[in-house]
């Protein structure tokens, strides 16, 4: 083992990264402070679009936090050595993104000062309440898993711990999907396909995030990634992107078949202004087709294009969530089916939403937290894969 010195950032790179990440986090905290003082009036959110940009960021981070654990699950549960070497990094990324996402979610609350109320009062019928338990459990499970991997004496336990994490993250992503599944009245949500769809999306987005993190760490340390590992991971990522696309297609096709849902599908896919645009260009073209081309085209598929593909998949994830969360709320609730409806409260009208700077800063702050935790984690502990020659 002695000849494999762990990869760590050089001092200059490290401090630059920490400063940059810290700045983004500070901006996010400042935005949260502004929202606390002025209220949500300074965001684009209103009584029709009640969840906005912060939720897009938070849900992306939380879903991906579960997704990056693919790498450790394949390593620990399915015994693939190439992945096993990467399991600690995946665990770190997961904790980092979970922390970032939850911070955003928490700071977006109308009363973030009452977070202790959320911890102490559980409404057993609320998916949100379950999720508070699932998220905190996830932290502990992943921390335990990391410990079993990094502490030699605990190594024998890393497989059961890995299994625990494996099960837990399935339940966690299900819980996140169910937040929307349980909304009976909204046409965009309220369907049982959402939890499995979120799970598969988490796989794809998590692989992309892992890939970006891994490539950056290798790049900054001036090391090269084993082409064999690279190829395996890129192929897996491609399959997962296709699987996620399949679920999105099934979701929309089912809706298109129901007469009462065609109005909504028309809005989200065709004439809803910014939402179809973001869906087709952002999610479908840039977030799926182009990455798949980059991954599978025989002339491409090298490390640069895979990094680019991963970044595009992440962009696609944000686009999807923007359309899903904000577009889904913008379409008016059908309170009186069969009637044309107007009122002073936006009944029957498309909800207006203009993302504001503070909420985007808050969301970015969450990404910053994830980045900062990862950077510092990689520096102070031995998280990065030891480059073993040609894993079997």
């Amino acid at each position, binding site marked *: 083992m002695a000849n494999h010195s762990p990869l760590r950032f050089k001092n200059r790179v490290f401090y630059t990264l920490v400063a940059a990440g810290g700045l983004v986090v500070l901006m996010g905290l400042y935005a949260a402070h502004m929202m606390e003082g002025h209220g949500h009036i300074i965001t684009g959110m209103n009584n029709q679009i009640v969840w906005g940009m912060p939720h897009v960021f938070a849900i992306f981070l939380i879903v991906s936090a579960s997704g990056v654990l693919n790498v450790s699950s394949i390593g620990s549960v399915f015994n693939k050595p190439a992945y096993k070497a990467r399991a600690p990094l995946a665990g770190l990324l997961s904790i980092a993104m979970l922390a970032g996402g939850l911070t955003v979610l928490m700071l977006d609350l*109308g009363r973030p000062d009452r977070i202790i109320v*959320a911890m102490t009062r559980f409404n057993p019928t*609320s998916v949100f309440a379950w999720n508070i338990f699932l998220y905190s459990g996830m932290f502990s499970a992943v921390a335990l898993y990391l410990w079993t991997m990094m502490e030699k004496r605990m190594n024998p336990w890393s497989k059961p711990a890995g299994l625990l994490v494996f099960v837990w993250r399935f339940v966690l992503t299900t819980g996140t999907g169910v937040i929307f599944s349980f909304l009976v009245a909204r046409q965009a949500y309220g369907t049982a396909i959402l939890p499995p769809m979120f799970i598969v999306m988490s796989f794809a987005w998590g692989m992309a995030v892992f890939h970006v993190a891994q490539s950056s760490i290798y790049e900054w340390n001036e090391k090269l990634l084993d082409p064999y590992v690279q190829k395996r991971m890129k192929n897996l990522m491609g399959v997962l992107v296709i699987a996620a696309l399949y679920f999105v297609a099934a979701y929309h096709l089912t809706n298109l078949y129901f007469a009462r849902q065609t109005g909504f599908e028309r809005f989200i896919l065709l004439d809803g202004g910014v939402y179809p645009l973001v869906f087709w260009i952002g999610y479908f073209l840039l977030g799926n087709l182009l990455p798949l081309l980059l991954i599978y085209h025989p002339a491409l598929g090298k490390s640069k294009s895979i990094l680019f593909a991963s970044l595009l998949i992440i962009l696609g994830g944000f686009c999807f969530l923007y359309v899903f969360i904000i577009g889904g709320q913008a379409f008016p609730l059908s309170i009186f089916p069969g009637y*044309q409806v107007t009122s002073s409260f936006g009944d029957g009208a498309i*909800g207006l939403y203009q993302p504001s700077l503070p909420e985007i800063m808050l969301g970015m702050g969450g990404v910053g937290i994830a980045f900062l935790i990862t950077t510092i984690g990689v520096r102070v502990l031995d998280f990065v894969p030891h480059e073993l020659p040609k894993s079997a």
Partner: protein
Amino acid sequence: MSDTNEISNTSEQRRQFLKTSVGAAAVAIAPGMLMFDMAHGKSEAVSGKVRWGMLINTANCEDCDKCVKACNKENGLSGGLSPTDSQWVRKVELKDMRTGRSLALPMMCQHCAEPPCVDVCPTGASFKRADGIVLVDKHICIGCRYCMMACPYKARSFVHEPLHDQKPDVPRGKGVVESCTMCVQRIDKGLQPACAEACPNKSILFGNLNDPDSEISNKMRTQASTQVRADLGLDTGLRYQGI
């Protein structure tokens, strides 16, 4: 509940203290203890024997918005109509897309027997009182807005800005969700909701749905009425005529 326990624990401890210690301190505390005990069990808790509801006849709504104005006045709402302003009752204008028939009605919290907002609330701040009124306990609402996502009637508003000069009987504040309370502050005094009182046509009939002899029950037994989105099976406390 936990507060209640805490209080009774404190009284327990204090009783112990009184028993075991002698001195001026005990004498000083005793009167307070006595008064504290007396304050309990005086007024009666609302009971499930009552279920408050309203029957709204939409026949005369088209040229009138007096209920909306009365609600705003009673509850201290600004009456502003921007997407970030609270509207507890709003006037909805409907036109049947097939037949062209038009009507209007007041839309507000439907006070469901199975309220989705209560199901989804993580802290239990959204709750249904024993007498069927669905409320937000703003002391424990964290402002997550999940209830607003879940409500099929868009009945809820989020307070987007700091407020001033609230009504003493209707506390409202930034960062929490609020909605029609059926004027609970009036109901507890034996009055009817402000909208029902203000309606010039007596088109909003307020009463106890659980009492078979009440006016509202009689009318609902003999005349047709509709629940909005009855397909969701939420058993609303508000019913409409003429939809």
